C-alpha cells in the first residue's frame, strides 16, 4: 500500500464521519475503523473529545484520514497501516507504536517511546517528544520539530529520525543501521553511536524528509548525522563493558 501523502489529508470532497467520544465508546470508534474495506467512501473521519483516551485509532489498515480534536493517551495510531492520523493536541506514550505505513502528525507534544518499533510510514511531532523516541525503530521515519528526551533511538535498526531541536542523554545507544539527524545539541551519545559525515546523499534524503514533514525554512546542512560505529555487531570480549 503506498504511503499517504500529507498534502492529501486536508482535502476531503465529502463530509467527515464524526465520532464524539463523549457520546460513543472508543470500542465503537475502533470497530468502525476496522470495518472499513478497500474502496470505502468513508475516507474522512473526525474524533471529538478524546480526553486523553488510550488506543485511539489503533490498527487502522485503510488509506483514510482521521482528525483527532484534542489530546490522546497511550498508543494512538498504533500499528497504523496506510491511514493519515492528525492529533490536534498532544499524544501520550507510544504514539504510532509499530506503525507499518501511512502517517501520524501530532500538533502538540508526544510522550515516551513515540514511534517505537515502527516498520514504516512517517511520524511527525510538531512539538517536543519525550524519552525513548524511536526506540527499536525498524524502518519508520520520525520528524520532531522540537526536542527529544533521553535514550532516543535505543537499538534503532532502520529508518530515519530527524530532530530540529536538541536530543537528551544516550542518543542512539546500541544503534544498528538507523540514521539520526539532529540540528541542535546532543547531551550525550549512547554506546556505539557516533557522529558521521553528512554526504550529498544524506543531504538529499534529509531534504526529502523535511519536505514530507512540512518543515520549511530549515536547511539540511544545519543538521549533524549520527549512526552506528558498528563495533558491537559481533561479540568481542574486548568490548564486554560496552554491551
Amino acid at each position: 500500500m503506498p504511503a499517504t501523502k500529507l498534502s492529501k489529508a486536508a482535502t476531503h470532497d465529502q463530509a467527515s464521519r464524526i465520532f464524539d467520544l463523549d457520546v460513543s465508546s472508543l470500542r465503537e470508534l475502533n470497530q468502525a475503523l476496522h470495518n472499513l474495506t478497500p474502496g470505502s467512501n468513508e475516507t474522512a473521519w473526525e474524533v471529538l473529545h478524546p480526553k486523553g483516551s488510550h488506543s485511539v485509532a489503533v490498527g487502522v489498515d485503510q488509506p483514510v484520514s482521521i482528525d483527532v480534536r484534542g489530546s490522546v493517551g497511550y498508543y494512538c495510531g498504533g500499528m497504523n497501516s496506510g491511514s493519515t492520523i492528525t492529533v490536534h493536541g498532544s499524544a501520550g506514550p507510544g504514539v504510532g507504536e509499530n506503525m507499518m505505513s501511512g502517517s501520524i502528525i501530532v500538533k502538540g507534544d508526544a510522550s515516551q517511546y513515540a514511534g517505537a518499533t515502527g516498520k514504516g510510514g512517517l511520524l511527525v511531532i510538531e512539538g517536543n517528544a519525550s524519552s525513548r523516541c524511536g526506540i527499536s525503530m525498524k524502518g519508520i521515519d520520525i520528524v520532531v520539530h522540537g526536542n527529544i528526551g533521553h535514550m532516543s533511538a535505543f537499538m534503532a535498526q532502520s529508518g530515519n529520525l530527524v530532530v530540529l531541536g536538541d536530543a537528551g542523554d544516550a542518543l542512539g545507544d546500541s544503534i544498528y543501521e538507523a540514521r539520526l539527524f539532529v540540528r541542535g545539541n546532543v547531551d550525550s551519545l549512547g554506546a556505539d553511536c557516533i557522529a558521521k559525515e553528512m554526504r550529498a546523499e544524506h543531504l538529499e534524503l534529509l531534504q526529502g524528509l523535511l519536505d514530507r514533514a512540512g518543515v520549511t525554512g530549515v536547511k539540511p546542512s544545519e543538521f549533524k548525522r549520527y549512526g552506528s560505529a558498528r563495533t558491537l555487531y559481533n561479540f568481542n570480549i574486548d568490548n564486554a563493558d560496552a554491551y
Partner: protein
Amino acid sequence: MCGIVGLFLKDKSLEPKLGAMLSEMLVSLSDRGPDSAGIAIYGAPSRNEAKITIQSAKPASDFRDLDIELAKAIGAPVSIAVKSTHAVVRTAPAKIDEAREAMQTLRPDIRIMGAGDVVEIYKEVGLPEAVVDRFDVRKMTGTHGIGHTRMATESAVTTMGAHPFSTGADQCLVHNGSLSNHNNVRRELIREGMKFETENDTEVAAAYLSSQMAHGKNLGEALEGTLSDLDGFFTFVVGTKNGFGVVRDPIACKPAVMAETDQYVAFGSEYRALTKLPGIDNARVWEPEPATVYFWEH
C-alpha cells in the same frame, strides 16, 4: 502500573473544590490500579487544634467513646469525627504525641494513617470511586492534596499497604514504581529510630524523606537525596504542610505529566487525569525531566 495524582492550588477561590477536583483526577486513573486507593488532603490550619487520622476494622466499637476516654487520659479536650472506617481525632497541638500514645493503649487495634496540623488521610482496599464515596472526599476543602490508586507489586493488598504513606507530621508520599534497595534503607532508618508498619517499599521512601527533613533539609533537598540514596523505579509525589513536590528517577520509565496555570499546579500519571481541570487547554503542560526535583511552597 499504579496511578498517582497531585493538586496544589495557588488560587484560594478553588479551595472549596479541592476534594472534588482531586477525586475526579484519581477516579479517571482507576484502571491503572484496582487494589486500593487513597487520598491525602491538606485543609485549613486551625491555631488551637491538630489532627490524627485513624482507621479501624471495627469502627463501631473502636471509635465509641474514644474522645471521652482520650480526653481523660491526656487531660485536654478531644473531638472525634467518624467517617466510615476512618476517624479524625482533634486535640491541642501540644497534646498530639501524647494522644497518639494513649490511643494505642486504649485501642490497640486502631491504625494511625497520619497526623499533623492540617493533613487528613483516607485509604482503603478498593477502587478510587468506592474510596472517595465512602469518605465523602468530594466535599472536602483544602489547599493541596495527593492521591493514589494501587496495583500491588510490593507487599500485601491491605489498608496499610495502600498509599499515601505518612511518616512525619503533615508529610505524605505516593509512589509509582518499585524500589530495589528498600530493605537496606529500612534497616538504616530503623537504626536511626524510625518505625515501620508494613513491608512496603513506598513506606521506606516516605520515611527516608521524613528523616532527611528531620535533619534540617527542606523538601527540595530531601527529594534531591532520593536520586542518590534510593535505587529502583520511581515517580514520587509528596505533600508537606505547605509544600508539594515531584521527582522521577534517572531512567524515568514511569509516566508523569504536569500542568501549571495561575490557579494551580497539577500532576497526573496520565494526561487524562488533568482533562477536567479548569483552563487546562491553555495550561503549560510538560513531562517532568528525569532526575529533576520540582517543588512548590505556599
